[in-house]
């Protein structure tokens, strides 16, 4: 979901809310995320193991006896016949409570540790030899740099744009940029990605490669060549990842800057005769930027959520595409793992935002 642009009145209220609460509630929220996924699995009608085997892929035609076996294995792996509290603890970890689990809980000790706390999400249904956790880590190596770069790029462009608009408030430049930003903000991610592919790909200008992260012959390239190839492949997805955040942040920066310019300490700075450039760059701009840090928290879910769409369109093997593949294959382990990790990434983003804000703002540190 895109970020709702919060009414201006509420921003300070939200800020206080998050800054006070987050350090204390980091762990409970983590458990809440975990609990929500657990509840959703069990609250939805039907037996999870029945989802096995009705995927529409080529493997769907596997014999029914193999399917029954697979289902039994799934039930055993997730302790589906055990009482709910035991299932919950098993899914949480760090102890594996199943028959092959830790000795303390009556298991064989073959696989003592498990659950999400040990980053153990079971194995894929289609490829039993692949562990979902390991595969997810490989996918995160793609998605996390993309998300971080997109975030940095959005901030780097949005802050100067916002300052410019605030300084030229009401003038043509401000209104033109403002309209452009609303337009960008309303652009659906998947459509923008498709258009980028159409315009810059082989069917249009043919400037950039559009699919995947490397050309087919990338293995023969030198290190520098490979990096260049990667960069060329990454440009369009990065644009798709970051334009929405850019539009949102620039508008927030504009109103933050306007608010700051109208505050008393700026008037005081001017009154005591500071040169305008110093009032602007030493007083107004830093104070307008600080609250922007907390917006990282609301951008991370947007960027991570957008990763499904961007990665599907550009065929990038990241976490979002992994979640989509998991959906297509009706693979429980994959969708549970990706959903969980996407939420934890947001939590980490929120925590980072609060931490950074506390570092720059002494009032928050005291509170």
């Amino acid at each position, binding site marked *: *979901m*895109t970020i*709702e*642009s*919060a*009414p*201006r*009145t*509420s921003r300070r*209220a*939200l800020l206080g*809310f998050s800054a006070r*609460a987050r350090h204390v*509630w980091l762990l*409970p*929220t983590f458990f*809440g*995320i975990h609990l*929500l996924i657990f509840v*959703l699995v069990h609250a*939805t009608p*039907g037996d*999870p193991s029945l*989802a096995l085997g009705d995927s529409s892929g080529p493997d769907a035609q596997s014999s029914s006896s193999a399917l029954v076996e697979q289902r039994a294995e799934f039930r055993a792996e997730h302790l589906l016949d055990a009482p709910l509290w035991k299932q919950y603890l098993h899914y949480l970890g760090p102890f594996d409570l199943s028959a092959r689990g830790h000795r303390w809980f009556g298991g064989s000790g073959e696989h003592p540790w498990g659950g999400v706390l040990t980053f153990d999400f079971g194995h894929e249904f289609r490829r039993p030899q692949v562990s979902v956790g390991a595969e997810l880590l490989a996918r995160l190596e793609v998605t996390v740099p993309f998300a971080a770069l997109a975030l940095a790029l959005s901030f780097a462009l949005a802050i100067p744009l916002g300052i410019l608009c605030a300084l030229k408030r009401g003038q043509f430049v401000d209104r033109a940029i403002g309209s452009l930003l*609303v337009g960008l903000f*309303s*652009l*659906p*991610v*998947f*459509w923008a990605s*498709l*258009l980028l*592919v*159409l315009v810059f*790909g*082989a*069917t249009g200008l043919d400037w950039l490669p*559009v699919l995947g992260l490397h050309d087919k012959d990338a293995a023969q390239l030198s290190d520098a060549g490979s990096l260049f190839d990667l960069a060329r492949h990454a440009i369009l997805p990065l644009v798709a990842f970051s334009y929405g955040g850019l539009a949102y942040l620039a508008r927030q920066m504009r109103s933050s800057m306007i608010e700051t310019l109208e505050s008393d300490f700026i008037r005081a700075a001017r009154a005591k005769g500071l040169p305008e450039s110093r009032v602007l760059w030493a007083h107004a701009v830093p104070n307008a930027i600080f609250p922007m840090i907390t917006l990282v928290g609301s951008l991370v*879910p*947007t960027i*991570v*959520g*957008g990763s*499904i*769409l961007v990665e*599907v369109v550009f065929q990038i093997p990241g976490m979002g595409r992994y979640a*989509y593949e998991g*959906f297509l294959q009706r*693979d*429980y382990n994959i*969708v*549970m793992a*990706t*959903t969980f990790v996407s*939420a*934890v990434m*947001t*939590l980490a983003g*929120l925590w980072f935002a609060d931490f950074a804000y506390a570092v720059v703002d002494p009032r928050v540190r005291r509170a």
Partner: protein
Amino acid sequence: MHNADASSRLELVLERFRSRKFARFAVLVLFALAGLAIFAPFIANDRPYVVESIDRPRFESARRTLSVAANELAALIATGRAAHEAERVDPSAPTFDAALELQAAAIETRIATMSASLAEPDRARLVEIRADSRALVAAAKRGEDRVAAAREFATRVATVARDSAPADGKLERDIERDAERDTARGGVQLVAAVTHPLIESLAPLEVACMVAWLGVLAAALVAKLAGARAPRRRTAAFAVLVLALAANFGWRAASGFGFVPATSSFKVAATRGELEIRRAIFAPIPFGYAETNLSEVDRAPSWLASSESARYAASRGSSDASGAQASIEVRFGEPAVDAPTRHLFGTDSLGRDLLARCLWGSRTSLTIGGAAALALSVIGVLLGALAGWFGGAIDFAVSRTIEVVQCFPAVFLIVFVLSVARPEGVGAAFAVVALIALFGWTHVARLLRAEVLRLRGQDFVVAARAIGASNARIVFVHLLPNALQPAIVAAVFAAASALLLESSLSFLSLGVQGPMPSWGSVLGDSTSASVWWTAAFPGVFIFVTVLAVHRTGEALREALDPRSEG
């Protein structure tokens, strides 16, 4: 700045809202889009408005089976009540009376079908038969012995059926039945029957929506032309439209989003020559949203040079270059093969007209977006108000839930739920609305909680409490009307988010299923980059709608905010 005699706060806000050019334009665009969605059946449809035709195969089959039905009725009467009820062979007609009714109804349907294509003198004999059959059945029900009369009736029906053979019937099946043709005396002249397939396919609520939309338009025009504003009446008309849309959605959800049947067989039958068409008036876009044409797959917008039929055939790798013209099937009522208006937006990978799909898709997209925004606002307002008003454990629970739910990117969460649960019972559209509402309410709730917290200590609330008002009264009568402002703005933005989310899900083929399109699913059908029109056009609709909603929301926020200059 604003009108001095604008008495109420609502009028003040409306006045400030109206003074924004962009906002007025955006509302106009949204209203037009709603009109397109509501009137989609009239704009793009494979059923004609009016058709005057002779359906010879249908007439013939009714004629042939008429005497069969009459014979069965006679046989039934001959069996008698006691014998029939002892046997009880037919589960659909457990009693003798029910069996009689069934046979009578069978005769009546056939007579109705035949009467539609017959002129007056020929029809009169059928009407006689109908009266006779009714009398016969009534008498048999009373227990009178009518075996002989029934036999006589069956013979008479057979004669009438034989006499009603069309004089100019040239169907091959007729020639096979030489014996019957030889005995056919005279023959009758079939006349064209006038039907209205398009209008008959409309559901009552669709018509209600159309009337409401036209009502709002009329009210706005009247107000504009008269120069005097009639805000109350217009507000009422608007409320009617919203109610009709909501009722429409509720009804659709209840019936599992069973929209009108995807395609009619009319065009296909007309093309095959089974119907003799005297006159047919089609919608401006004579294509159904689910009407496939496998001879015209992935064709570029027909106003482009690259879409010209010979080039199209060549690009499809058709070996028969000379027969390029013939390779595209042009059905009855459609523009010519190379007419620039044939497919303004091109066709998709099943040869469906993209413009028709976009227009019909606006129904799904706008309804789901609006319904989801409404639902999540209701949840958010209720939970936010509860948390803000009662505080304590309730506030704790709600706030912690908000924090947890907010951590999830909505797309991931919905993908997750849709892959663990199959919403077979409720329908995919309803499931999408429910999930968006279930995971999207947090923002509204947070705003409302903060607002209620701010207001609950103020004098008017304390005063209400002092005179002994109940909790419910204070919250619903005093607090909510004052606290709703930010929630209303948030709800407008939530509509845009919900629409985007629905499009994203449909794009990933997680949303609305089947032949019914939504903008996102039309976009998701685009298979390769060379078929650019399937990717480009549906997105324009999404973009324009979301942009208009954002503009409206912003103007509303500024109009509601007394601090903004305006």
